[in-house]
């Protein structure tokens, strides 16, 4: 097992980034595709495994026209949503319908345009499967979550208007609520497994096929553990913050503050920050557990293996410090934050290279349009698997 490394530096990337921002501003946005290519190339080409690096092959010129179309769509969307109350409902719905397609196009384009050691990646997943994974499953999941509150909001007023509430409802309602919560949690784990499998099993490296065998049970365990950790961490955060508030401003002030929201201002602010930090740990916990499990069970041609050694403590510390850095420099530390995060994740990604990559060859692939990827970029559509 060999770890990947990141060979860029924060100061070097800062210089590239600031020039990108400057040129994007003075060209009123027209430079953005070139800026995007330079950003992506910097992170791809500095990711190195055994002296061989990744490469991002798109050019600004190639992205430019699709970028203009994507921007036009984005501007139309923003205007339509603001201008008419109907547009504000219809257009987000259209976007929701388009998301699986955008994810699918992005995967195809991004894989095709990326190489490692001179060999291109590819993506063979289908659009239909993308709709099952990124529309049908989320839809069922949301349904399971909202069915209880919606049911309560619709049924209870109707029943109470009709007079007395039948006894069977009193018994059945909590059972139904519990069942739908259990189902929602199961559905969440199932959806995660399916989404990850879709992306990995569809991925290619030259003629090589990535494959993964995952179990819903494992994702369920991770989800349940994450819920447990959330409860513990949030309770701890609350106790510590309450104790801190009691010590620093005195209990009487806190009690008086309960009746006077204005006095609670600073305390609420501290609470807010505490909750953000706590939720970062929870996110990091969930991401690292899943990553470890997924990498361990994924291979390239059943030959080359992967491992993730990323730990929740390290990742959450990185997230917190990055956030603070960015906040206190009004965004100027963004390049360092990005480089630090890239270094941490790459150094914790291990690949068994015993067989080597020498047999891999780029396969003939049709040119992919970048339009879907760029619309996705404009609307910030992300698969969000944290791989």
């Amino acid at each position: 097992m060999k770890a990947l490394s990141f060979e860029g530096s924060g100061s070097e990337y800062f210089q590239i980034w600031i020039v990108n921002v400057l040129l994007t501003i003075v060209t009123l946005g027209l430079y953005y595709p070139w800026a995007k290519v330079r950003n992506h190339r910097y992170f791809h080409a500095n990711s190195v495994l055994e002296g061989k690096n990744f490469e991002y092959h798109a050019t600004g010129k190639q992205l430019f026209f699709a970028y203009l179309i994507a921007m036009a769509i984005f501007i139309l969307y923003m205007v339509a949503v603001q201008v008419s109350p109907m547009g504000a409902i219809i257009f987000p719905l259209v976007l929701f319908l388009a998301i699986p397609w955008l994810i699918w196009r992005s995967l195809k384009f991004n894989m095709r345009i990326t190489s490692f050691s001179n060999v291109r990646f590819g993506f063979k997943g289908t659009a239909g499967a993308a709709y099952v994974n990124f529309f049908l499953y989320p839809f069922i999941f949301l349904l399971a979550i909202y069915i209880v509150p919606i049911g309560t909001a619709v049924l209870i007023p109707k029943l109470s208007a009709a007079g007395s509430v039948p006894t069977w409802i009193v018994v059945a309602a909590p059972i139904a609520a519990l069942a739908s919560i259990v189902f929602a949690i199961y559905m969440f784990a199932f959806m995660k497994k399916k989404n990850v499998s879709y992306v990995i099993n569809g991925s290619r490296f030259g003629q090589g096929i990535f494959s993964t065998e995952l179990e819903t049970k494992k994702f369920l365990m991770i989800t349940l553990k994450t819920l447990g950790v959330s409860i513990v961490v949030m309770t701890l955060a609350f106790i510590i913050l309450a104790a801190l508030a009691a010590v620093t401003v005195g209990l009487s002030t806190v009690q008086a503050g309960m009746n006077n929201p204005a006095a609670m201002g600073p305390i609420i602010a501290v609470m807010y920050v505490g909750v953000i930090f706590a939720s970062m740990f929870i996110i990091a916990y969930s991401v690292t557990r899943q990553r470890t499990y997924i990498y361990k069970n994924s291979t390239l041609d059943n030959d080359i293996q992967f491992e993730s050694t990323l730990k929740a403590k390290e990742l959450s510390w990185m997230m917190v410090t990055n956030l603070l850095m960015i906040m206190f420099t009004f965004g100027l530390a963004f390049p360092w934050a990005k480089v630090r995060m890239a270094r941490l994740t790459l150094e914790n990604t291990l690949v068994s290279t015993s067989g080597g990559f020498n047999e891999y060859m780029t396969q003939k692939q049709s040119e992919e349009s970048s339009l879907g990827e760029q619309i996705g970029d404009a609307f910030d559509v992300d698969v969000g698997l944290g791989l």
Partner: protein
Amino acid sequence: MILGQWYEAGSAAAQPATLSFKEEGLYQLTLENALSYVGHNSTLAVSPRLGNVARKITFEDGSVFSTDNNDAIDKYFSKQHKAYSLLHTLESHSSLVIIALLVTILSTGAFFKWGVPWTSKKIAHALPEKTNQLIAENSLDFLDKYLFDDSNLTLKKKEQIQRHFYSNIVPLSKENREIKYQLHFRDWSDGNLSIPNALALPSGDIILTDQFVKLCKTQDEMDAVLLHEMGHVVHRHTLEMVIEGTFVSVAVMLIVGDSNGLVDMGVGLGSLLMSSAYSRGHEAEADSYAFKHMLAAHIDPASFSHIMTRMTEYMDGHNESNKRKKNELVEEEKKDILDYLSSHPNTKERIDIANQYSLCFKKGLEVCEVKGLQ
């Protein structure tokens, strides 16, 4: 001689190789097994310089030579990529980077402070009057359905206010004859609280709430607010808000394009502050529109500050009865912080300006120079 790795076209297998450049624009590639190829430099495709990432030189047959020796490559190929070598020069000189940084910060600031409102205003006024009708279409129905109830004012009262508005106030506006002003009355209640407010839709529909009409003690006070609302319509503020909002979201998307959720949080707050700053500008503009027309119509601008004060007191009074214990000092402090978030300019400032106009009025002037925020 440049040391590097050579890949056959599309293959992951690499072997050590050297590349050297000869006179007359010829290159020589020598592989590990001593095989060597010679060709014209013009047939080579060289990837642009980017920091110190490995350079890729692609030969005619699709094979690739990869090297870390960026400086040597630049020596021979800086002419091939004039634009990119200029970019690299920009990126690798710290003094230039600092200048870029300053220019970026200043131009971003200027863009948001002046560029966005100025351009939005130009665009808003370049669009045909129909656009305003289009935005406002269904808006009143929407508000009626979700916010307003029917007015409880007597028909006589409503007719009296409308008659005065159409015959005395509407003719004061000479800027845009295309606007069809319509006056509506609605009740707006939140729990037990009846909210005093006046709203203008871009189509020229102005809505007065029952509580607002009740709070007006003189006709002048109501006229002041009506003129303020007409200012919003004449200056096309709704349209400007839409355009400003689009500008801000596009600019934000471009600058922090590939960020993550954590950065987005900060950006969201920034956009919120930005849009309330724009909206404060609009309120000030509508105020000064109202004051100027009040002077012309011989209405004392002080009546604007009277009704503003009464409305604020009414709302404050109601809030106070909700939470009995009130700590004066903290309340004051909170107000200062909330000012940044508020969509209306500081009430005290607005009243100050109203009083300056009122002084002009008392001197019998019809035009007035006022210092303050605009």
